[in-house]
Structures are given as structure tokens and as C-alpha cells.
């Protein structure tokens, strides 16, 4: 069936979505699960940190503006974690679109940066690329 096909395509890469909006998490999760990725979620940087220390991920999709621990603080904490956690790639998706915001994300250790809104096709494409599962 198509689901099994796409699962194989994505190689069941594990993606952690970090966003404080439940609707946004649902939208990204539906988009990625529909493409065969395995998805976990966190509502802020602190919860995300607990998850990445407990289980392996191939990619972290992270928002910037979140309560308690924002996305860039999370990426900095991630990068200073012990290996192999420190090396997990991150895709920042945010409404902040200025070149300074991009530079800040890069300096924090983000691998890639997208500005919201992100279409489902774009999200799938970038996640596939960053997890090495694109054909």
C-alpha cells in the first residue's frame, strides 16, 4: 500500500517537532507522518531537551518563539550536549524573517532555516533532504 511504500522511502527517519502551538504541531506531524516519517513532539525547548537526551532523532524541526525555553536557546543547549546528541541536525521554522534572525539561528547552530508559512510540500522536501531520505 502507499503508506508502506512511503515509509520505506523515508527510511522511517525520526523527527522531533518543537512548537508551542498545538495546531502547528498537528499540521507538521500530519504532513510528515503522511510522508512516512516517524514523528515525536515537544511544546518548548525544555521538553525537547528531555526527549533528545532520552531517545535518538534524525532531525529536530524547531520554532523560535516559545515560552520557557525558546528555539535558539534549545539549539545552543543541544550543541553543547554530549555526542551524539550534539550533532542532531536542526531545521528552524519561524515567522522571524530578517537577515539578523537568520544569522542568529546560524550562530546558535541551526542547520537550515525556513520562514513560515511553510507548505506541506516544502516541509516534506526539506525534511527529506536533511534526514538524507530524499530520493
Amino acid at each position, binding site marked *: 500500500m502507499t503508506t508502506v511504500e512511503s515509509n520505506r522511502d523515508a527510511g522511517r527517519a525520526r523527527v522531533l517537532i518543537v512548537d*508551542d*502551538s*498545538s*495546531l*502547528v*504541531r*498537528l*499540521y*507538521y*506531524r*500530519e504532513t510528515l507522518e*503522511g510522508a512516512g516519517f516517524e514523528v515525536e*513532539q515537544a511544546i518548548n525547548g525544555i521538553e525537547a531537551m528531555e526527549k533528545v537526551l532520552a531517545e535518538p532523532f534524525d532531525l529536530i524541526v524547531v520554532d523560535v*518563539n516559545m515560552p520557557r525555553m525558546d528555539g535558539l536557546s534549545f539549539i545552543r543547549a543541544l550543541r553543547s550536549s554530549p555526542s551524539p546528541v550534539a550533532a542532531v541536525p536542526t531545521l528552524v*521554522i519561524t*515567522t522571524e524573517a530578517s537577515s539578523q534572525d537568520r544569522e542568529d539561528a546560524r550562530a546558535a547552530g541551526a542547520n537550515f532555516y525556513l520562514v*513560515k*508559512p*511553510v*507548505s506541506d510540500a516544502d516541509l516534506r522536501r526539506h525534511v527529506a533532504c536533511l534526514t538524507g531520505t530524499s530520493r
Partner: protein
Amino acid sequence: MAPPEVQRTRAIHVTQEDVRRLCEFLYRRTGMSFDDNKRYYIDRRLAERITATASNSFQSYFATLRSDAEHEIEHLVNAFTVNETYFYREDHQLRCMVSNLLDDILRRKTTGESIRIWSIPCSTGEEPYSIAMWLMENWSEVDKYNIEIVGSDIDTRALKAAADGVYGTRALMRLPRHVIERYFGRIDGNQVRIDPGLRDSVQFTRVNLIDARDMALYRDFDIVFCRNVLIYFDDASRRIAAENLYDCLRPGGYICLGHSETMSRISTLFRVCRFPDAIVYQRPEADHDDS
């Protein structure tokens, strides 16, 4: 032991005067008004409650109701509210929300401000969940904003069902197949369960539309869906409800009513907006003096 009790309550005679007292009480407490042409409807639900409370006369039941023993007012209200609906009902309003209302609302937003949408009464949750699904399926900017969806109802039993998120397959009749596959899991041949993520995207609360204290907790909504509840109210309660709703909206916010309802006959506070997909009512951007 129980059967003789039930037998007795079944035989209880309820007079026209009893019904009038009950309706008056219900009206004072909830604003819901029922007249004589709904007598059969009232009798049936009243009989249910008399049986459920094992009362041996209308007077005894009415005393229980007035003292609100065991939350009887709430049980009676639950019995009186009709809870049957389905997903994507009145989808022209959902289309209007995406095609017209959101663009206008976003003009007034500053970065990081939430979009707040209220479904009242939300009954068993079909409407607020429909709003969430519609936005995800049809609005390309859905991930750009923090969208808060609140579903409220006076009926606590309906709210519990809404939060449980279990539906009969009949409620899915208007949904495209891919939407069903995406957001529902099958329990058995007749029932489905809503996706936990979708469930978490809606907050459910109990609210009485004509209770200003209840309503004062709800402010700054951008869109309110308030369908087919004002028809239960008489003119006075309807106006109170409409004005309460006005206060719950942000300036420039919109209210969508049921297709048989018009705000113009209820309150002059709102501006009528005729969009291609729906007629909706707007709280004017700058408040005017309506005295």
C-alpha cells in the same frame, strides 16, 4: 427494590401549571425559553429526570431542582439541549473564514499575537474540531500564527463527549475521505476516535451565554461561531446573549450565526457583512456610542 419506584414515577401526572413553573425556573436560571407548543418535548425530558431522580411527584422533583441537589439544574439543562450535529456542517462559513475573515483580522494583528476562535455552543465538539481541520486543510498560513480554538457549552455532558472525541460514523458524512483518514481512527464499524493532536488543539469550557459573569472570562476573540442557540431564547435573553458576545469580540471581530438567524433583528451593535460565501456580523473596529 427499584422497580416499584420507577413504576410510580411513570404514573406521575404533570399539569400545565407545573410545566409553566418549570419553564419559568429554567428561563430564570439559563435564559432558555420554551412555550406551550414544545410541551411534548418538555414532558418527555421532564419525565426522564423525574425517573432518574426517583421523585414521587412533580412537587418533590421541583424541590430537588430548586435546591439544586445533586446538580439537578445541570442534569435538566443537559436533558433539554439537543446535541446532534456533524463535521463540516455549514461549511460555507468555514470557507468564508479562510477566504475573507482571516485576511481582514490579520490586518489588525501585531507579530506574535494569537488568533482566537470561539465555538459557542460547541455541543459535542464537531464544530470546533471542524474549524481546526478546515484551517489545516485549507489555509496556507496555518503554521504562521498561534491559533487558539475554544469550544464552550452549557451542557457538561456534551463537553465531556467533545473532550473524549468519540463519534458515530454518521458525524463524518460530509468529510472527504482523506480528511477522515488523517484525523480519525476507527474503533469499530460504527465509531471513530478523533486524533489526539486534533483533540489537544481545542480547549473545552462550560459557559452560559446569558450569564455575564461567565462571559466576562471570555474576551478578545477574533471569530465567534454561535449557531442555532439564539433560537432557544426569547427576545430579552437573545439581546443579552448578543451583547455579551459583542463584548467577547475584539473590535473588528466577526460572529457567524446559524443560517436561519439574523443579528439585525436582535441587536444593532453589529455591522452586517455580506461575503460571497456567507453573511456574517462584525463588531465595528472603532466602538461607536450606541445609546
